[in-house]
């Protein structure tokens, strides 16, 4: 493999667009997923993340624009792309009529691998996802976390170069979530490209080398997690709960020049600054009475809420 081929992005989207029945789900987006990293798509429900993933793994057609996966065109070379892809869907769609091991062996047969070759590989994957002792059980007997891990094992039967994971940990308890993260971290360290969507900022911050935030079908920010925080919210955050009658506008005006930005939702005021402690000291408590004040580090969650707003979706 030449250097150029190695450096070629796993996914390239150019002016990618998709609408369902007149509703624009993905609105002319451009992005590139470099090979060998974990790339995250963040965004509120309905932002267009799942639609983008589905176009990549062949469960939605490309509306307009260009989408290349592993160097191939998704419309013309769908079968070849899918042969080298692993998919962990949002919905658990395991085959309930088969055992845990049979789910993997059957999946391998969809990729053209015969059962004799597939069985040792299946056992290896069950070990990797800590499911060996469940190999002969039916799917119904598995917990939610085990089903998720089996979905990951299933996505690996063809030894894929790129794995697409749509909300891989939604609905899991913290222990199960950590087990999934560990599996994904081990895959990344082997050089597999991971492409995942999530609503969990902690997950994005822990797993992803690079992030892209989507809202209303468009890309609103892109970068590595730390840079996104620095760029969009600064270093620290001061959270204030204002007493009734406190003039928020005047408060903000009084701190002019020290703020990187702010968010005001009813009586909750979030102030972004490089020195939130200093901000709190400088605040005139007699003029602006508050119920509570909290100083903390800025997180990805602040970036997310700043860029996509605080109002409820759906």
């Amino acid at each position, binding site marked *: 493999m030449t250097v150029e081929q190695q450096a070629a992005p796993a996914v390239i989207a150019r002016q990618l667009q998709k609408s*369902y029945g007149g509703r624009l789900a993905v609105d002319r987006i451009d992005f590139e997923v470099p090979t060998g990293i974990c790339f995250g798509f963040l965004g509120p429900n309905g932002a267009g993340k799942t639609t983008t993933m589905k176009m990549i*793994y*062949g*469960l*939605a*057609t490309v509306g307009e624009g260009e989408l290349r996966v592993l160097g191939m065109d998704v419309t013309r070379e*769908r*079968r*070849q792309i*899918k*042969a080298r*892809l692993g*998919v962990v*869907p949002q*919905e658990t*769609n*395991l*085959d*309930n*009529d*088969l055992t845990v091991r*049979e789910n993997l062996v*059957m*999946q391998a*047969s*969809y*990729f*053209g691998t015969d059962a004799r070759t597939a069985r040792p590989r299946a056992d290896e994957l069950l070990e990797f996802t800590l499911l060996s002792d469940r190999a002969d059980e039916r799917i119904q007997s598995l917990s939610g976390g085990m089903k998720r891990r089996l979905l990951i094992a*299933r996505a690996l039967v*063809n030894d894929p170069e790129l794995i697409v994971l749509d909300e891989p940990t939604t609905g899991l308890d913290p222990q199960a979530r950590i087990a999934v993260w560990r599996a994904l971290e081990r895959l990344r360290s082997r050089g597999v490209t991971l492409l995942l969507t999530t609503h969990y900022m902690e997950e994005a911050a822990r797993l992803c080398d690079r992030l892209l935030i989507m809202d209303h079908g468009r890309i609103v920010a892109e970068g590595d997690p730390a840079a996104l925080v620095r760029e969009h919210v600064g270093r620290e955050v001061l959270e204030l709960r204002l007493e009734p009658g406190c003039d928020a506008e005047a408060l903000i005006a009084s701190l002019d020049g020290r703020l990187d930005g702010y968010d005001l939702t009813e009586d909750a005021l979030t102030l972004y600054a490089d020195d939130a402690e200093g901000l709190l000291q400088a605040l005139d408590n007699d003029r602006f009475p508050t119920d509570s004040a909290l100083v903390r580090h800025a997180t990805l969650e602040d970036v997310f809420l700043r860029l996509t707003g605080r109002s409820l979706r759906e």
Partner: protein
Amino acid sequence: MAMLYEPGYRGLGGPLVVRELVPSPRHAAAIWKRNARVFSRLWRGALLPTFLDPFFYLLALGFGLGTYFAHGIEGIPYKDFVAPGLIASAAMWSSAFETTYNVYFRMNELRLYDNVLSTPIEVQDLVFGDLAWSATRATIYGCVVLIVVAAFGLVSSPWAILIPPLVTLGALCISVIGYAFTTLIPKIDLYSYFFTLGITPMFLFSGIFFPFDKLPGWVEVVAWLTPLYHLVEITRGMATGPDALQILIHTAWLAGVTALLFPIPVRALRAKLVP
């Protein structure tokens, strides 16, 4: 589950190029194998009713009702007339259930097809694999009836040995109709129309129980438009002594209609699952 998933109507979608309609045998075989694997778990429990069902029909119709028709039908005893048709009807019922409720369940409740279609398997492979399985299952059921019928001494022609592959063809034709219905309907309730207005009338009016010679001509014309009529003519011909030309015509009808209808479920399923 409290509520059944309703997939909604998506229609046929856009036209497909030939490449998207021709199944890859290797990929279709993987789907066939999956269905066969699941069936192999369940068949032992289901086999006894499969034998008993034709047995009861033969008893009630052939040996019960049939004793009132002293002269038989078309020169053959009534039980000999009815018996081969029961092979065809068993294949029809099997095909109808497999391509309606079973496919619906796999597609909408288990969401298996979403997974399958994110592997190298394409829609046309999936549909063909499912249809081939449905026809296989129908042939198994048809053979069970054939064995029962033969055990009663109601098979008089050695050509009956060709009944199984011809039943496969007839079942394929009925399956493609059931599959098309499944991929087009927006909700599961509509199956009652399929069975009440399609399958049951076919069962009763396709010449299994009575011939058409004393009925107005249009009745047979209508029957001619249904796949079961042709399959019944084939199984009866093969069991009692075939007319080669007639068998050829019926076979061509079934093969032609199957090929003609195949693009419908492929297009509809693609419109539904790969929008």
